[in-house]
């Protein structure tokens, strides 16, 4: 039995090695084609993902990771409950927009404004997600399609609002006014990383505890595994759907608020859409097969790839086109490795249970 397990570990390690060799091979080929130095590029990649003076690049990675992981956690809650909600982008935009507008117009002490704006953002995100849920439950629009389609109106509504009624006229950009400086999230001392990541960490912790240890999370998962089963044993499927979507949307809204108060300090048209936070969140979740504790790590992984690639692009010798191709190649090989390995390990666990 032990040798069996050991050989399984060995097999796993070897297959990872092969995947890494593939990635390295393809990248080497690409770089050779443009005559870029491979070793230099690799070290630039790592340096720019994790290094820098006073670890400033690591901070950039973490700052990006916060938003990606936040979206990943939001998506995970939906996916685990069997709700194919790919409207995270719309919920994120709703949250960011409302956070910025609320902070601009709410009176009161800064801490109150900040708290109320974050809350408003979460409500907005939840509301936008609920809209997709209601479309499914009452108007027969499948969630997958409905949530996807709802991404567009909110994006353009937000764009219109900050382009016309709420535009910061002085700036010449499509953006709202700056939110009051007193509401900005402070940086960790000595760094340029805002404390927004703590909010995301809290949300992740909540999601992990929720998924593993709460009754609601358990019921949602049963619904995710088999909706027919959930209905038959009398779980409140409709209510579960709406509640889970609301939770998922609220976290997306929170991410929007963190982007506003921590990073940009206002709503800028496209700031939440163009970096593809929501889509990256989705692939981060799928990459690790929706295992809750692994989701934030997966978000960090993608953030590191992106900042690393951006850094590599900055360093001389590696054109930006290659950086994109590299990202794709890494995702392709890692995705097929990880999803395969996870399926295998869950089977093994099941088999082990029988033997016990």
């Amino acid at each position, binding site marked *: 039995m032990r040798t069996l397990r050991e050989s399984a570990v060995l097999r796993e390690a070897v297959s990872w090695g092969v995947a890494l060799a593939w990635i390295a091979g393809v990248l080497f080929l690409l770089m050779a084609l443009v005559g870029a130095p491979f070793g230099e590029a690799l070290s630039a990649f790592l340096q720019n993902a994790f290094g820098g003076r006073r670890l400033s690049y690591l901070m950039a990675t973490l700052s990006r990771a916060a938003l990606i992981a936040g979206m990943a956690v939001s998506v995970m809650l939906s996916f685990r409950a069997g709700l194919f909600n790919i409207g995270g982008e719309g919920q994120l935009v709703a949250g960011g927009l409302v956070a910025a507008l609320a902070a601009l117009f709410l009176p009161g002490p800064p801490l109150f404004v900040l708290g109320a704006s974050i809350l408003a953002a979460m409500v907005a995100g939840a509301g936008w997600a609920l809209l997709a849920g209601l479309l499914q439950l009452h108007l027969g629009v499948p969630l*997958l399609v409905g949530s996807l389609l709802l991404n567009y109106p909110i994006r353009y509504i937000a764009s219109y609002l900050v382009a016309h009624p709420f535009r910061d006229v002085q700036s010449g950009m499509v953006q709202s006014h700056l939110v009051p400086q007193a509401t900005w999230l402070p940086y960790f001392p000595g760094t340029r990383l805002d404390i927004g990541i703590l909010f995301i960490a809290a949300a992740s912790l909540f999601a992990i505890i929720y998924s593993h240890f709460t009754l609601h999370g358990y019921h949602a998962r049963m619904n995710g595994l088999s909706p027919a089963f959930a209905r038959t044993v009398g779980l409140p499927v409709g209510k579960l759907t709406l509640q889970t979507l609301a939770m998922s949307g609220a976290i997306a809204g929170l991410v929007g608020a963190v982007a506003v108060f921590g990073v940009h300090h206002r709503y800028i048209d496209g700031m939440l859409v163009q970096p593809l936070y929501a889509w990256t969140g989705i692939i981060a979740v799928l990459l690790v097969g929706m295992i809750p504790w692994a989701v934030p790590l997966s978000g960090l992984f993608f953030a590191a790839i992106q900042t690393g690639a951006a850094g590599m692009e900055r360093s001389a010798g590696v054109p930006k086109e290659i950086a994109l191709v590299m990202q794709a190649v890494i995702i392709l090989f890692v*995705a097929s490795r990880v999803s395969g390995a996870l399926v295998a390990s869950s089977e093994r666990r099941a088999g082990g249970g029988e033997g016990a």
Partner: protein
Amino acid sequence: MLELLFDPSFAASVPRFVTPILLAALGGALCERAGVFNIALEGFLLMGAFAAVVGSYFSGSPWLGALAAMLGGVAMGLVFAEFNLRRGGDPIVVSIAINILAAGLTTYLLRAIFDAMGAFSDPAIAGFGPVSIPGLGWLPVLGPVFGGQSPLFYLALVAVPVASLFFARHRLGLRIRAAGENPAGLVAGGVSPRRVRLYALMGCGALCGLGGAQLSIANVNLFVENMSAGRGWIAVVAVLLTRGRPWPLLLIAFIFGTVDSLSFRVQGLGMPQQFTDMMPYLATLAVLITLSWWRRGRTANGGAP
């Protein structure tokens, strides 16, 4: 006001919007029916657009350009198959990676082949001219819509009944449907669903390639980075909405195309661009809701299933 909306160029412009979406969506339909969740149509389309320009530039013939576009699309289909079918990667992750790959590879190759950054336009790129259909000219609306379009539009129109026939009567079409519905049935019959899906992906690549060719050597004669500009995603939406059925797909593609084309004209009336940009999506949502109401109404009246 109405004449502003329905100016003479309006009807003629609709097919230019419809063609790439329809071709890509028919490709997506092959995957959908075969049980492959392919949301990389954007990447397939982009690669097709690029390959079309390459083929047309070097051969001087738009038809060879279209052939190159199909090959480009098929290549992307093979990449998808390798990582999803053979290595078992999640289809969504693979799709998104392929979209990124297409964006990177096309700009990289643009630089490598043409030494151009971001865009490439050259008189040597031979484009598809309009095909005139005799006897259509005098028709008030149909004349401009169906006359004088690029050959790829007619190809796309013909592809709809062909696809319908293919799913209904062709041996591969039957197997594709089985692969999507109950692959175990194929296994029991000694046919590998994986192989069937591979063919579906290749067909999807070819069709998306043609859609890309419409963008780069029919609508215009040039390549710009990311020139698919979200049209592949619209095709994905269309496929999801219709569950890959060719005739409804034609309808949705026309709705999208018409509303998109209309949205340009509405701008001329002073509607903010953000709202005109929203129109195709809201129109789709409206169609969707209406359809499901209609369906529900029918079943509630005790109709046959």
